């Protein structure tokens, strides 16, 4: 009834096999339970678009989509994601869902070093999927967990605001 395997307790350092669907592709990796999802994505799967900054949930550089929602990949272990569907910035870029946001970030200098940008885009993408026409205040609020050392945020808010308006008008942000 229990389903608990006693040998587990002796296996703390062992490697376990996990499977997920990453960017539409089925993948399997070998990880130690202590390995975070961000480390697994970057080191095992070489998807280095997801950045690791604080590794404490404070900076937002590591955001990915897990089963359709933005989450911090530094705040979960890869084993927890076994069986999940993950989209990283690479997959979201390939699919084209971010193309207008990316173009607008580029045009308005909403990125400089680009370290925070993948997290900003994942977050902005979720915001716009939940609220079609967020106010500037709502945009700032949604970005409150994403740190940017370079831009001062104003251009980022501008870019997201412009895309929201363009999308609501039915066209792309061109």
């Amino acid at each position: 009834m229990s389903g608990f395997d006693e040998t587990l307790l002796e296996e703390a350092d062992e490697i376990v096999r996990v499977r997920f669907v990453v960017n539409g592709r089925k993948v399997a990796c070998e990880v130690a339970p202590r390995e975070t999802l961000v480390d697994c994505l970057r080191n095992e799967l070489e998807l280095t678009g997801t950045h690791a900054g604080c590794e404490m949930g404070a900076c937002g550089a590591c955001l990915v989509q897990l089963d359709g929602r933005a989450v911090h990949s530094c705040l979960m272990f890869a084993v927890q994601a076994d069986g999940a569907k993950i989209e990283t910035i690479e997959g979201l870029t390939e699919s084209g869902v971010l193309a207008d946001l990316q173009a607008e970030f580029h045009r308005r200098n909403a990125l400089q070093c680009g370290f925070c940008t993948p997290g900003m885009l994942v977050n902005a993408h979720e915001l716009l999927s939940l609220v079609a026409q967020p106010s500037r205040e709502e945009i700032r609020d949604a970005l409150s967990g994403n740190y940017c050392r370079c831009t001062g945020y104003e251009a980022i808010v501008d870019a997201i605001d412009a895309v929201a308006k363009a999308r609501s008008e039915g066209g792309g942000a061109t």
Partner: protein
Amino acid sequence: MKARAFSYFRAATIDQALDAHARASDDARFIAGGQSLVPALSLRLQAPRLLIDITHIAEMRGVGREGGYLRIGALTRHCEMLSEPLIAEFAPLLHAAAPFVAHPAIRNRGTFGGSVALADPASEFPAMTLALDAEIEIAGPAGHRRVKADDFFIDLFETALQPGELITAIYVPLFKADQRFAFDELARRRGDYALVGCGMLATFIGERIDDIRISFFSVGNTPTRVRSAEATLIGSGLGAERIAAAQAALERDLAPPESDEVPPAMRLHLARVLLGRLLGRLGEGA
């Protein structure tokens, strides 16, 4: 910073989770949203031998009416406090508090049960269970029990939970037509922990308060009901004099700890300001 090595077990039922904890001689931690536990493991503030993932336990999910209560499964995520219609209708105080809990992506994973179990004195939801007169459903090796929020929070990060016990759900009395609620917090920046926060639930007879529960957070070692302030308000309306009396009573209810950032007198002042604002909103029918 990386966590110490641990074994990982994904529980499918409450019994499995309790059993695994016992077999690890209690050198184990349950992981729900992980939004507080993972940083604690990374900092090596904790280093359990076994991590028991409870997020796949179906019995701990879901929101539904049960008698005069809303039963909110412990695994209900913070973001669901915002999106779940039953919560908006029957536990609107939780709905109002949710946007103040951390940032959107953290709300996508953090759970109600995890927040209440952790009992961070700066957290919104534990304090709101007090204002709501909620009951915490607990499963443990010795069986199930329900503990009133008033009896749940004991001291700094200390609750009525014994090692190896799980919060399975939280029961919140259904919000009624003659009730009003208000919530707000003062923080340096949205998404940061509050300098002072407060939520309240009042039952009215006309414009007169029949019953009120007011709960503060970030003012002491536990979420705190302010019983003298409550007592000054019961049986009367919300005129300026009454509000001032309640604000004055806070001195008897709150003893903010010494801190380098916010001296106790300032925190007490902020608590008074916040109480005045929220009672003002209740008076306007908020």
